[in-house]
């Protein structure tokens, strides 16, 4: 029973319909998968309902959908230029999925999908692989210019090339760690302070107020991290179009 109240208990994964296996692979349907399905269903329902009326003067739902659409459209245009239109559907889906995962995770008794580093890392790593392959397809060998910017003297190359390679490989890791660590740290902190509320009795009002403030901060961070993730995705995709900075 004591473990049930651990601040880290909210991140535990358990199977819902029992164990399902394909060969050696465990493909059981877990609470994490359930949350992702809920996010996808909610996202689709929201966008279908919001854009159904197509009125000139939008109601609340429609203007919400339009605002998110415009924001991501501007982001892709700013960072990707004329190539932005091709990637807009991908970037928009990515942003909305991460944003909804973050926000739904804030609801008590729900599960935060993005607090697990394996989830964020698999998203980030597939983007990284895609950007790298795209870069080689579009630029061929010229893509390697990314590791040695123009105008750098040749005697600096042995030092600069390993540095640039390390910095290139670190991209998916920094993407994944930032999102997962922010989500996990925030949720753990809220749970820890929630424990103080019970333990302090009447003086629990102070940590309770603090939790309210923390929730506001967490909502901002949920939004911000989704936005940073998409902006950096755009920047990395842009590098595959123009490798020579």
């Amino acid at each position: 029973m004591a473990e049930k109240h651990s601040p880290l208990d909210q991140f535990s994964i358990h199977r819902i319909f029992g164990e399902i296996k394909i060969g050696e692979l465990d493909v059981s349907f877990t609470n994490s998968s359930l949350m992702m399905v809920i996010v996808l269903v909610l996202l689709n329902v929201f966008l279908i309902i919001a854009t159904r009326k197509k009125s000139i003067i939008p109601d609340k739902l429609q203007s919400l959908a339009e605002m998110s659409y415009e924001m991501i459209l501007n982001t892709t245009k700013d960072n990707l230029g004329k190539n932005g239109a091709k990637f807009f559907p991908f970037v928009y889906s990515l942003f909305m999925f991460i944003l909804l995962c973050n926000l739904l995770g804030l609801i008590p008794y729900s599960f935060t999908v993005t607090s697990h580093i394996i989830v964020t890392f698999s998203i980030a790593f597939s983007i990284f692989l895609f950007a790298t392959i795209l870069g080689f397809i579009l630029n061929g060998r010229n893509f390697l210019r990314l590791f040695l910017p123009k105008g750098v003297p040749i005697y600096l190359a042995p030092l600069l090339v390993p540095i640039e390679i390390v910095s290139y490989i670190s991209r998916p890791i920094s993407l994944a760690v930032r999102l997962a660590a922010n989500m996990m740290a925030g949720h753990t902190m809220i749970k820890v302070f929630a424990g103080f509320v019970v333990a302090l009795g009447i003086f629990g009002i102070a940590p309770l107020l603090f939790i309210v403030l923390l929730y506001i901060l967490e909502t901002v961070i949920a939004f911000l991290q989704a936005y940073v993730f998409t902006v950096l995705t755009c920047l990395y995709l842009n590098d595959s179009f123009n490798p020579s900075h």
Partner: protein
Amino acid sequence: MNNQKKINELNKSLGKLSKSLEDLKTNDKEESESVGKNNYKGFSHAFRIVSELFANVVVGAFIGWGLDYFFHTKPIFLIIFLILGLISGIYTSYKSAINWQK
């Protein structure tokens, strides 16, 4: 003749109205944009720099450890790539800070 005069007057006041509306709009836009930039873009950039600093060191250490594992040269590559990771972490976050200032 009288009608023509009225129409001209109406057109003039319409022009004034649309102009003042336009002014209001641009003012609003500038204000909201600057507020958003100052508060949240800086915040998000701080997150970005911190995670870059961290991830580069981790990747450097991992590459070094991997090379040592394959060549059985225990600490040499780990040390070299850890230092390279530190340098590249500072270099990357420096570059992104410069980019942000532009």
